[in-house]
């Protein structure tokens, strides 16, 4: 007996997504019944099977009765040119004409994600469509509600990688929003979250561009004499709770309660919370700082200088200079720093940072193995219409008009106003907690007593949390005292020589950029000839690649790359653009390449001068 179309499709899908066939078979009855959507089939004038949906008392077609493919042709054309490597999101399978059109209009590098929010439609299409014939070997992924929707987030994250984000296209098939608007919105929300988090990353990069390199070369000598955050593992006892003190407006409500927690918990504060804590006579065991532009006066207080500090190497240099206590560093992926460890046969540990000082402190507490982590002052919202606690940026923070702000569910109030950056951090916390909880048995307690609800945390007053959990006495300060710097005296000497060579190394990069610029000029010349010599063209391209590899291999390159982040972003996204001819493509490549090399050369010149004034003078 020959196989049915549905069997053929399921067999093919099962090879692509092992286990999907079983899930479809097991869940189909429940899903078909539960969705309450009837999918009917009828023949179009052209004799093609088209689908019609009965839902919410309405009857809606998914393809035209006269020309089922016409609307797909027009709407896909209206998306404009779809670049190679672009992610394309299709919401709804419909009659598969939209998918066919997208595949027809694009090359094989394009990634198509099809999200079908209605299982009943997917199931009906299994009996009609030829999925293998339509999709074939193209890069296409299928998400079906009720079957594999839990893979959405991972799939979107894998597809929406940085430079591809600006290239993405999306299309919701007509009529779908009439019967499953909520699911569609949730899907787009996931895309929106990823794109926004990339935007936050990019904006953070851009915000610190002007100071990042200056801070970096100024601060990097502190890494030589400082400590690895990884040294804290095992040194700081984790059988007491970790209390993460942030500077949200609710901190004023229960800050005094924290006095009882001192010496009964590991108190780690966000930089902005340091001054309010000291004013209450509470010295945190550690504080965190990452902002390259953080003003010194936020931590400038009697007693703050010696508090151990976990910090990023490109944090505000004035704060690092002011601070005289132990400084702990993490691996931020800087080759320049990693080289310092590598030359001494050591490594610096990575730690997810999350973009804010609170996320950094929280991530550290988790990685140090604490089993009870208590949030205080972690509002992630404008509780009482204030951005921060009193005594931080101002003695009395201003109340602002939040009537037009987005609101989110609160810990104590039904809803609280929030800001885009606060809300992104809240989502980061939630995702981190969700993934951490799958691997470790940790209690996350939100003792903020105000602010936004963080999924995955238990809400408790600080008094209750301290009474219940801070029962053991501990001397964290003593644990810090025992720690030795990451490098021995001899190792530090070696690093010092490396520092002194830095301007020379940066200069090498500038020279390579000059060489690269000349190569691009040759490429341009080659492509401007009427009759292009393809062999010569490819030869230049190979040399261009080698030149770029050498530039990118320079330990100082990341600092250059960060400094020219905006231009780099445009160039990286435009690498996917396609041109009609090799000559045209080569000319465009040469144009961008010359600009890029010019930027590198100019930037390297600036960094060389900074390095001469900073690391080169380190003693």
């Amino acid at each position, binding site marked *: 007996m020959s196989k049915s179309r549905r069997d053929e499709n399921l067999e093919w899908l099962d090879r692509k997504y092992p286990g999907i066939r079983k899930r479809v078979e097991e869940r189909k009855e429940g899903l078909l019944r539960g969705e309450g959507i009837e999918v009917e089939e009828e023949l179009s004038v052209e004799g093609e099977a088209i689908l019609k949906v009965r839902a919410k008392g*309405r*009857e*809606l*077609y*998914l*393809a*035209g*009765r*006269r*020309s089922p493919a*016409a*609307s797909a042709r*027009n*709407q896909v*054309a*209206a998306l404009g040119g779809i670049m190679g490597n672009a992610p394309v999101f299709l919401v709804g399978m419909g009659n598969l004409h939209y998918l066919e059109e997208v595949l027809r209009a694009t090359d094989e590098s394009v990634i198509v994600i099809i999200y079908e929010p209605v299982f009943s439609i997917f199931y009906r299409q299994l009996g009609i469509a030829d999925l293998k014939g339509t999709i074939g070997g193209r890069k296409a992924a299928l998400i079906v509600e009720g079957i594999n929707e839990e893979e959405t987030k991972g799939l979107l994250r894998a597809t929406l990688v940085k430079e591809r984000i600006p290239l993405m296209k999306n299309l919701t098939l*007509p*009529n779908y*929003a*009439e019967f499953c608007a909520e699911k569609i919105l949730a899907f787009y929300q996931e895309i929106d979250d990823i794109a926004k988090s990339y935007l936050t990353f990019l904006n953070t990069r851009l915000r610190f561009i002007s100071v990042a390199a200056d801070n970096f070369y100024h601060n990097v000598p502190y890494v030589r004499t400082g400590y690895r955050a990884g040294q804290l593992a095992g040194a700081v006892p984790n059988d007491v709770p970790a209390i993460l003190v942030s500077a949200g407006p609710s901190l004023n409500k229960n800050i005094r309660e924290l006095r009882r927690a001192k010496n009964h918990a590991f108190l780690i504060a966000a930089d902005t919370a340091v001054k309010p804590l000291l004013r209450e006579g509470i010295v945190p065991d550690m504080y965190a700082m990452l902002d390259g532009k953080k003003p010194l006066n936020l931590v400038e207080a009697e007693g703050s200088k010696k508090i151990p500090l976990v910090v990023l190497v490109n944090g505000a240099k004035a704060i690092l200079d002011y601070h005289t206590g132990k400084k702990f560093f993490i691996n931020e992926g800087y080759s320049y720093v990693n080289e310092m460890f590598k030359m001494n046969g050591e490594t610096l540990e990575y730690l997810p940072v999350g973009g804010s000082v609170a996320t950094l402190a929280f991530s550290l507490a988790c990685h140090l193995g604490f089993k009870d982590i208590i949030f205080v002052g972690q509002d992630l919202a404008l509780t009482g219409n204030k951005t921060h606690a009193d005594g931080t940026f101002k003695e009395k923070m201003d109340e602002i008009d939040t009537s037009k702000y987005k609101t989110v569910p609160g810990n104590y109030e039904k809803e609280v106003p929030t800001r885009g950056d606060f809300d992104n951090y809240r989502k980061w916390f939630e995702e981190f907690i969700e993934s951490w909880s799958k691997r470790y048995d940790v209690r996350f307690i939100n003792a903020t007593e105000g602010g936004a609800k963080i999924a995955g945390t238990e809400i408790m007053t600080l008094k209750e949390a301290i009474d219940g959990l801070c029962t053991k006495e501990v001397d964290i300060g003593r644990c810090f005292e025992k720690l030795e710097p990451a490098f021995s005296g001899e190792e530090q000497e070696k690093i010092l020589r490396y520092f002194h060579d830095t301007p020379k190394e940066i200069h090498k990069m500038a020279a390579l950029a000059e060489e690269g610029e000349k190569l691009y000029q040759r490429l341009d010349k080659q492509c401007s000839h009427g009759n292009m010599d393809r062999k010569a063209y490819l030869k230049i391209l190979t040399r261009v690649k080698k030149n770029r590899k050498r530039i990118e291999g320079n330990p100082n390159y990341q600092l250059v790359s960060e400094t020219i982040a905006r231009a780099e972003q445009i160039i990286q996204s435009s690498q996917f653009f396609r041109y009609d001819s090799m000559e045209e493509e080569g000319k465009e490549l040469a144009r961008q390449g010359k600009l890029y090399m010019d930027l590198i050369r100019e930037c390297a010149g600036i960094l060389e001068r900074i390095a001469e004034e900073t690391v080169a003078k380190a003693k």
Partner: protein
Amino acid sequence: MEEKAQRLYEGIHYIGFYDAYYREGRYLEQAKGLIPLVEEFAGWFLGEGGLGLGEEWEAALKENLVGILRDIRQALEEGDRVLLMDALEQGVAEYLEMFLPESYFEEREAVHVEKQKG
């Protein structure tokens, strides 16, 4: 009727184009504005209009047009954008094309080519 047919034809294409490019979900609302012209054209075609193709053909064309009108009514009642677009673009517009002179399409094509050239 030619002028009205041209207006309706352009209207149908405009709202389809608008919907595809701007994705504001206003197709039904915009299409409703064309219904009086559709009704006028259909009334004329089913009454005095015709192409002189012989009784059998004329009857088939009229029956087909009645089917299109039925779909338009159903689409408006159900709020069905797919059915409405199909009925207007692949149904009514095809009838209109039969009544528009060749020179009209040649002009449209010329404008399109100019636009492509930039």
